[in-house]
């Protein structure tokens, strides 16, 4: 059993910056539907390369949602260089701490941010086709994409 801080609860119940920026400068996606946690982060920069707007979508537990919300709040107004310094510990601290078992949910935020910045800079992020991404269900990333597109 884990205890959440009031701040975690508040960000979970009233998450800031939910959604997708359509013409985003950077997009980062991590996690998978198979494993039960995933995060999509999009941001828009102003003329000084500062983060003007940032939005997230999260599939996951209360910590994952609160961490995503916290991350977007931390990022607003930061330059890319400053944003790069944001770690999962910063996210956890912003929320007044996370249960030990839930720290990985904040790591997801940091990883999505790295990917989004790499995306903006045009650095290719390697993605192996058919990689096993989920031990419990033995699912590959290809199958996950198929699960989503074939559904309807």
């Amino acid at each position, binding site marked *: 059993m884990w205890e959440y801080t009031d701040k975690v609860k508040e960000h979970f*119940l009233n998450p800031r910056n939910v959604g997708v920026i359509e013409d985003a400068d950077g997009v980062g996606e991590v996690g998978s539907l198979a494993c*039960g946690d995933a995060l999509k982060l999009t941001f828009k920069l102003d003329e000084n390369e500062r983060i003007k707007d940032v939005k997230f979508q999260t599939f996951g537990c209360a910590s994952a949602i609160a961490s995503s919300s916290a991350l977007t709040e931390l990022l607003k107004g930061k330059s890319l260089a400053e944003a790069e310094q944001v770690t999962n510990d910063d996210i956890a601290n912003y929320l007044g701490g996370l249960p030990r078992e839930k720290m990985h949910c904040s790591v997801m935020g940091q990883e999505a941010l790295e990917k989004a910045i790499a995306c903006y800079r045009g650095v290719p992020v390697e993605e192996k086709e058919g990689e096993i991404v989920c031990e419990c269900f033995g699912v590959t990333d290809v199958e996950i994409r198929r699960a989503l597109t074939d559904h309807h």
Partner: protein
Amino acid sequence: MKTIYLDNNATTAVAPEVVDAMLPCLREFYGNPSSMYGPARQVAHRLEEARARVADLLGVSPAEIIFTSCGTESDSTAIWAALRANPDKRHFITSRVEHPAVKNLGEYLSRNGYRVTFMPVDSRGRPDLDFFYDHLSDDTALVSLMWANNETGTLFPVEEVARQVKERGIVFHTDAVQAVGKIPIRMADSAIDMLALSGHKLHAPKGVGALYVRKGTKFSPFMIGGHQESGRRGGTENVASVVGLGRAAALAADHMEAENTRVRQLRDKLETELLRRIPNAMINGDPEHRLPNTTNISFEYIEGESILLMMDELGICASSGSACTSGSLEPSHVLRAMGVPFTAAHGSVRFSLSVYNTEAEIDYVIEKLPAVIARLRDMSPFWQQVQTG
């Protein structure tokens, strides 16, 4: 805010009558039931009265009931008793969807000199009986199959299987922790040798259970110690809780009809209405052979812990097979054994009712839950993909 408690497969509220029955044993009747003197003899008396009531609920004789500290201990006791009493046989069969009390002990045994077979189930959680019968052998000491699954409520045909198993001289144990008190059980003309139950699933307190051991079954104690429970379970008896369990057993008999009519109707209403109002939702388990109080519903593309916590804000208590809610960070082994797709397994929610639930409570859940699901789906990267996809 009023609490709407729909997590009765996790634990139940102690019935007020049960608390009342326990109190004297926590106050004046504190003696050790093994002692000689007058005040302690009254304690022993209450203990035996409780044993008779539990025996009545199962339709067995009081001497066939051993009190234990929980369902887990009852299961361990049964399994070790059968294995120790049949030291030449080294094979144990159980299923892939057992509670950890049996599953984890099975895994321990498979690492420690036993051959253990875990029977698979189909997508509705129904047992693969052909596989099961094929795997019985002369080396099989024991079969342990749960009567009712705690996560989905699916019922195994244990009475029928027990008859087949008994013909081959193999001991049959059933973990009936979720079945006792919810469906009528008459052990007298059954072929089941041992049956485990736990008090806190039927409105007795936590920390007391019982094991039925059919007369004549070879037995070797698990809790080795003093001569309590006719030498079958050492340790000073948990008198107050045992007396509570006795009272709860009598209440369960009284409530059996309501459980299978009114509670079943409430469960059906909850299930039907939620499925009608919420898209991409599906039932996990066997809708036909199922406990009357349980429904396990998957809400695709969202995650169970978030659903539980948003329901908590509304005062609604339920549970989930999601990885994120478990200490182990793995999704429910039951849903995985059933092959529930990952899109659904993570967003599973179990609602389990009791006779204390009202129709107004169920209506409240039906009214509030669709918005919770919609809100979480709005945040989910996958839902949008599916919608636009």
